[in-house]
């Protein structure tokens, strides 16, 4: 833990801590995950299954084999770029690597999540800071406000600022599974979307905007606890 901590300069770390909802350990952990993704992949194969997902934090402190190995690899990786860690933090990680993270692998919204958090012009890769943003929004301590804001943007498939019928039907398809046999029938879908709009479209303009969406979300106590990704 100390090693990687010193790589990431103290000021930067403090700044990240100030501007995100993450703790120090979580930030350091994401350094591992993003900057040395192939290590994670290797470990994953080695451990046969996705058991490692919650380990690194524990291992940061008690230095079990995985941690020391990952750490050593991390240090081997770094020296070339060591002169400017900040620069290496700006490096873009392509979507495929992010999508193969065990935390996101099983999520039907993974592509949307990556797109929403990506700041690169082509929207096909995440920088380290974007990744921190993602984790910050999905962390325990993020405010319900910011969580619902990003949930809205994730569900807004066509990025037009409102949830229209098209968005809603794609959302429902994501929830039920995309396959022919798993999705709802057309009449069911129409009925469902009519009901949703009836319930949540307060100003009756046929779409759900951010404030209407947040109004719905505020009535569900489970949202804050389920909109969470534990690294």
């Amino acid at each position, binding site marked *: 833990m100390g090693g990687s901590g010193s790589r990431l300069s103290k000021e930067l770390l403090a700044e990240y801590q*100030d*501007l*995100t909802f993450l*703790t120090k*350990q979580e930030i350091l952990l994401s350094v591992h995950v993003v900057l040395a993704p192939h290590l994670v992949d290797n470990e994953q194969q080695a451990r046969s299954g*996705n*058991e490692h*997902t*919650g380990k690194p934090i*524990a291992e940061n*402190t008690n230095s079990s084999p995985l941690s020391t190995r990952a750490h050593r690899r991390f240090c081997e990786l770094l020296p070339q770029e060591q002169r400017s860690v900040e620069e290496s933090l700006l490096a873009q990680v392509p979507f495929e690597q992010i999508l193969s993270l065990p935390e996101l692998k*099983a999520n*039907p919204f993974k592509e949307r999540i990556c797109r929403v958090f990506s*700041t690169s012009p082509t929207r096909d890769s995440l*920088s380290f*800071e974007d990744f921190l*943003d993602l984790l*910050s929004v*999905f962390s325990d*301590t993020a405010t319900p*406000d*910011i969580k619902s*804001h990003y949930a*809205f*943007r994730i*569900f807004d498939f066509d*990025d*037009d*600022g*409102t949830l*229209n019928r098209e968005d*809603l039907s794609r959302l429902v398809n994501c*929830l*039920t*599974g995309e396959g022919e046999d798993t999705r*709802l029938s057309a009449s069911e879908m129409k*009925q469902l979307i009519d*009901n*949703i709009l009836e*319930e*949540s479209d*307060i*100003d*009756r*303009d046929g779409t759900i*905007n951010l*404030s209407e*969406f947040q109004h*719905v*979300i505020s*009535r*569900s*106590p*489970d*949202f804050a*606890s*389920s*909109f*969470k990704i*534990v690294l």
Partner: protein
Amino acid sequence: MAQPLAFILDVPETPGDQGQEPSPYDESEVHHSFHQLIQEQSQWVAQEGLELQQREQEATGSGQQTLRRPEGTQSTATLRILASMPSRTIGRSRGAIISQYYSRTVQLRRRSSRPLLGNLVLSARPSLRLYDLELDPTAREEEEKQSLLVKELQSLAVAQRDHMLRGMPLSLAEKRSLREKSRTPTGKWRGQRGGGGVFSCCGRLRYACVLALHSLGLALLSGLQALTPWRYALKRIGGQFGSSVLSYFLFLKTLLAFNALLLLLLVAFIMGPQVAFPPTLPGPAPVCTGLELLTGAGCFTHTVMFYGHYSNATLNQPCGSPLDGSQCTPRVGGLPYNMPLAYLYTVGAGFFITCITLVYSMAHSFGESYRVGSTSGIHAITVFCSWDYKVTQKRASRLQQDNIRTRLKELLAEWQLRQSPRSVCGRLRQAAALGLAWLLCLGTALGCAVAVHVFSEFLIQSPEAAGQEAALLVLPLVVGLLNLGAPYLCRVLAALEPHDSPVLEVYVAICRNLILKLAILGTLCYHWLGLRVAVLQGQCWEDFVGQELYRFLVMDFVLMLLDTLFGELVWRIISEKKLKRRRKPEFDIARNVLELIYGQTLTWLGVLFSPLLPAVQIIKLLLVFYVKKTSLLANCQAPRRPWLASHMSTVFLTLLCFPAFLGAAVFLCYAVWQVKPSSTCGPFRTLDSMYEAGRVWVRYLEAAGPRVSWLPWVHRYLVENTFFVFLVSALLLAVIYLNIQVVRGQRRVICLLKEQISNEGEDKIFLINKLHSIYERKEREERSRVGTTEETAAPPALLTEERGD
């Protein structure tokens, strides 16, 4: 009506800006002025009318999608205006977010520091419209807004600023640049403001304090999180089975915390002093055979484990030692450690603290899970909030998709059912089935209670059986088996009866299980305090009851292990090997949680008679955690039923508080006030009731001198006088009533606001329709005389006329 008019006056006339198409990223207008939109638009139309005609024709079909009321009458231009309305851009673009947070910061500053009025007007109402004159509005405006935001941020305290930035839905890089920009000239800015400094300083200080406390709390929380065991285990369970099963394990953790708290008190104030000053044992200690681990009798009887071992003497401990802080305060001075008093008050204090914590966490949980006006909107909530992002396994993810699909289908079916209500005959049949099932369940509960009663009578009447150690285990075994078997019967019954909603089904199952357990426990309590006390005259009945509860606890654990083994493991093997089914047995959360509550009730019942029972319960819970976790991961699958985790945990906490804790408290109060303690053992052996200990002490204090005379006074007027109790309960009722009224008022406000919003929606649609009709008229005019652009000023005038009506 004054509001919109004021807005209209506010808007400066801006003849430029026609050339720009409002692209999706053009979010400059954070005004709520349709006037301006319409004006702009009509000018724009005047210039590009021809192009519009073609576009409009191809777009009329898609209009239906965006707007419901004016069906099929939308043009691309209208759509574009719709798309650039502030309510829609806020979810999408950076500039809109920046301006939203700008106005929020202004509000915050206004609240915390109250600057001068002139100052406020200038800063709170920035004339963003001015920047529309620029040639490249999107980029420039964003910059300007950003600089305005930066200025606002600069006027905040550092901690406040960071807090604000953290909550903004912007990317980290932007937040960093905002922070960087707003950092440097802080000192200068503060110097400029000068006059308002006193106020803002106070506000800042307060805010900084709040923030510091908040961050301290967060740091503590994260520290605790790092310390908590099972973080990884819980994550894994959450990842594989979702929030619903996780709630069971979290509940188990809560119970552990409650027991640890209780145990800490008991060890510190009862067991510790007793161990430090061991009494002389009456005889040689009996030899342990190993069966005692199950029965709690034999060589365990005369240990700190049970009531009988504690002395009724005052332990000659000088005051001021850490052990007797609560009973022997310095002002009483020189008073020795009074064991009966310590015993009584420690148990009382333990119960009181548990009660406070329980009620607090229950209230908190209620506040979280039941929001005012949260009755409608089930479809929307299901679609928006039901995905569990914690799930990390492909299989679990697929299962979750299946569950959500079934849930959605059920919801739709339910909805259609409500649209066309069932026939009278069908309803009658349903009511009959429900009534029969309830009757059977109540009958089962009653039968169980009677069986326990008869069996215990039989045990009392056959004293030869009581001599053997193993015979002691018969009653716990019978009760445990009844507890295990009856819920299965209820489940079979529940499968037969029709239920409208799955949530109701879960509640009914919980209710039935609870009635059963209450009936059995009630009978047992009567058996102990009513019959056993009479039978065991001359012996230590408290020891017996303590041992009995210990046996129940242990037997409960053993049966739970067997149930896990046979109910889950063997059943899984059978269903996989023999029946060739792919489904594993489901993890029945409700039943498992009720078992936990039952065990906890036993512990609370037994605390007075066996102070170390919480320790036994802690060990049991730890073992249960690992056994259940292993069994769950190996044998079970997530429940098929939808499960509202936060509602359910509220229900569980309520159950833990209301029948379980309250029942145990009533039982103990009865034992303390009404039952005569046995005269051969325990700290209260010379007294008529345990409560006498307090009175004796007060009398002693009265005799001790005038220095502490206020203590007996307090005792007489506050504890013995009923008036005080009445006063407190009246106050409590008044507070509850006031709260209810406040909630009712809030509900009314919510209704009004909703009405207002829908009215605004109507207004919006009306205006859009108006706009559209203007287009159409324009178009016709355009057709008749191509190329003229004179009548652009007419539409807004027309609109204001209509508004004035």
